[in-house]
């Protein structure tokens, strides 16, 4: 864990500036019980072409809800109740709002512009279909002229790209090792050359060595193919290494958003600081580990004011009354009363 992954945040070429996705005021609610639970509240961020945006948070912070909302894969009782997901097409055409898109239009955009890698590849691959066939149907859905033979060849090629030997295309998912499955599902996500790949903790199910290999591969492929990534995980240490920028979520809101470097060196929000101090530094003298006391709030009854105030060591009068808004504080966006307006 001592060497730097190639192409990390320090690599300026990896983050060209034009926007691929613009998320504005996204609200997601769960229609359970009599009062809907708001799992994502007023989430806004922009994602640039080829950029890796990390999203970190504890379980229950709304990060998984965000994934299904971004990809419009929600099922009842989850529902996007407000906000926009503006996708800017490659050809420079006018932006499309994914939230209001019809099923048919959405299907056309899926995989060719927007794809996903799920947490457990074992669960994400159809157990009764050969791995290659699961590439072939995606490829042929989005390119009707592609014949079967060519599609299978392409599937083998894609598998080769992530270092899985081509003959494994004819295997069933359970016949692959865990690492191979996870790499296959990354290759699958890239099958139709998307602009944006959402990754939901794709390395939690594999061992540490495999985790490094996979992350290195993601970075290499990103450099070669130029897709942007929203990488969601509970593991902030991993994000600080991998991502260009990181968003910290708490109780369904983004509480801090900034470059990995600034978040690591100088976290502004007490929660971000708590997260950072809960794992040992990678390349610095050891310091005392401090976690965050308490547990995430019950979203059915969110605390008044700043949702973090019950666990915050730096709270003061007023934290439990007013909700802090996300504002630019020295280059990072932070939602905290420690930084008063106009400071």
């Amino acid at each position, binding site marked *: 864990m001592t060497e730097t992954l190639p192409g990390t945040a320090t690599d300026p070429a990896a983050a060209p500036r034009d926007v691929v996705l613009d998320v504005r005021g996204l609200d997601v609610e769960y229609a359970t019980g009599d009062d809907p639970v708001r799992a994502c509240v007023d989430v806004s961020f922009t994602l640039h072409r080829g950029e890796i945006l990390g999203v970190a948070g504890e379980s229950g912070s709304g990060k998984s809800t965000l994934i299904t909302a971004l990809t419009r894969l929600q099922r009842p009782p989850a529902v996007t109740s407000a906000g926009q997901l503006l996708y800017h097409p490659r050809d420079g055409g006018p932006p499309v709002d994914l939230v209001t898109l019809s099923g048919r239009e959405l299907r056309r955009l899926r995989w060719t512009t927007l794809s996903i890698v799920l947490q457990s590849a074992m669960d994400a691959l159809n157990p009764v*279909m050969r791995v290659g066939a699961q590439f072939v*149907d*995606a490829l042929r859905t989005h390119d009707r002229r592609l014949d079967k033979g060519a599609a299978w060849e392409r599937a083998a090629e894609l598998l080769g790209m992530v*270092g899985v030997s081509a003959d494994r295309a004819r295997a069933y998912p359970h016949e692959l090792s865990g690492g191979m499955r996870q790499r296959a599902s990354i290759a699958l996500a890239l099958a139709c050359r998307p602009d944006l790949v959402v990754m939901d903790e794709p390395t939690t199910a594999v061992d540490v060595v495999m985790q490094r290999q996979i992350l290195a591969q993601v970075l290499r492929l990103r450099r070669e193919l130029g897709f942007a990534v929203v990488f969601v995980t509970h593991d902030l240490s991993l994000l600080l290494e991998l991502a260009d920028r990181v968003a910290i979520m708490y109780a369904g809101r983004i509480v801090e958003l900034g470059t990995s470097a600034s978040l690591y060196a100088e976290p502004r929000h007490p929660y971000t600081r708590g997260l950072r101090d809960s794992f040992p530094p990678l390349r610095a003298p050891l310091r005392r580990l401090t976690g965050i006391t308490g547990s995430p709030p019950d979203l059915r009854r969110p605390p008044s004011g700043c949702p973090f105030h019950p666990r915050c060591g730096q709270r003061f009068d007023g934290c439990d009354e007013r909700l802090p808004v996300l504002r630019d504080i020295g280059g990072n966006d932070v939602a905290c009363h420690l930084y008063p307006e106009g400071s």
Partner: protein
Amino acid sequence: MATTLTSADQPATRTTAPRARRRWGFLARRLGFYAVAAAAAIVLNFLLPRLMPGDPSSAIVEELERVSGQQVPPETLESIRAIFGDPGQNLGEQFVSYLGQLAHLDLGVSIVNFPVPVSDLVWQALPWTLLLVGVTTVLAFVVGTGLGVLAGWKAGSRFDAVVTPLTTFLSSVPYFWVALLALWVFGFLLGWFPLSGGYDPNLTEGLNLPFLASVLHYGALPAMTIVFSAFGGWLLGMRNMMVTTVREDYVLLAQAKGLAPGRVMLRYAARNAMLPSFTGFAMALGGVVGGALLTEIVFSYPGIGYLMYEALQKRDYPMMQGVFLLITLAVLVANLVADSVYVLLDPRIREQG
């Protein structure tokens, strides 16, 4: 990178061969189980009449002589004793001669239809049962599973909210009662269908058009009642499996890939949700030989079920015994076939005991 990856690839490549072998091992073990089960069925068939109070074989001989009004010929007597027990022999000797009878496919002679051998009567009834119950079992499965796929795919929709509770009720209604009602309404009140039998007795049996038409006409109502009362079970089972499967990650990923909804529903969700239903279906197919006992009775349909019912009513023990053996073996064979097909349907299959 390539070198490190090949080392990671190796273990999985090596495990494929044992996996293929495990699949055959699974089938071999199942085959062994069914062989033992078949043996158990034969032993059971052998023991049942011997365990029962009284001496069935003398009772049968007496009954035969009373029905036919003549002395039972020695070879028939021997055959009856072999099947139902010979007071002069010990159990071991009896079992040997019983197996000898079976090897010659000799199931004894029917009492009611003396002296027609049981096997002849069974062969006569079998096509009727296979036709009626076979067709309806497949039909009920297809209809029920199809509707179940839809209800589960759109779980919580209006279709689901109406069809599912309704089916719950329908599948709780005792079959013979439905059959009686159907017979009363469509046969008696409306007169659309004949009240009993498998074909018009005034026509000559054979492959001629009027006869085949009458078979269809006579079979329609029993067929409909079977489908009507059997599809609900498939529907409910499939619906619940669908609801669970639809929320699996691989279905989510299939949607994320932008596949057509129909393809996601069938190739990803239904294909996996069907696996448990399929086992049930194969077992139901095995049950086909046993006939729809109650259907055949309500409609006096000339199949295996009716044969067994008649045997039961008239205490025709050879008949009961023979039909039972046939039914048991058919169910075992169907189960074995089901297991074999399951291995093809589910590549993950492992031995589960």
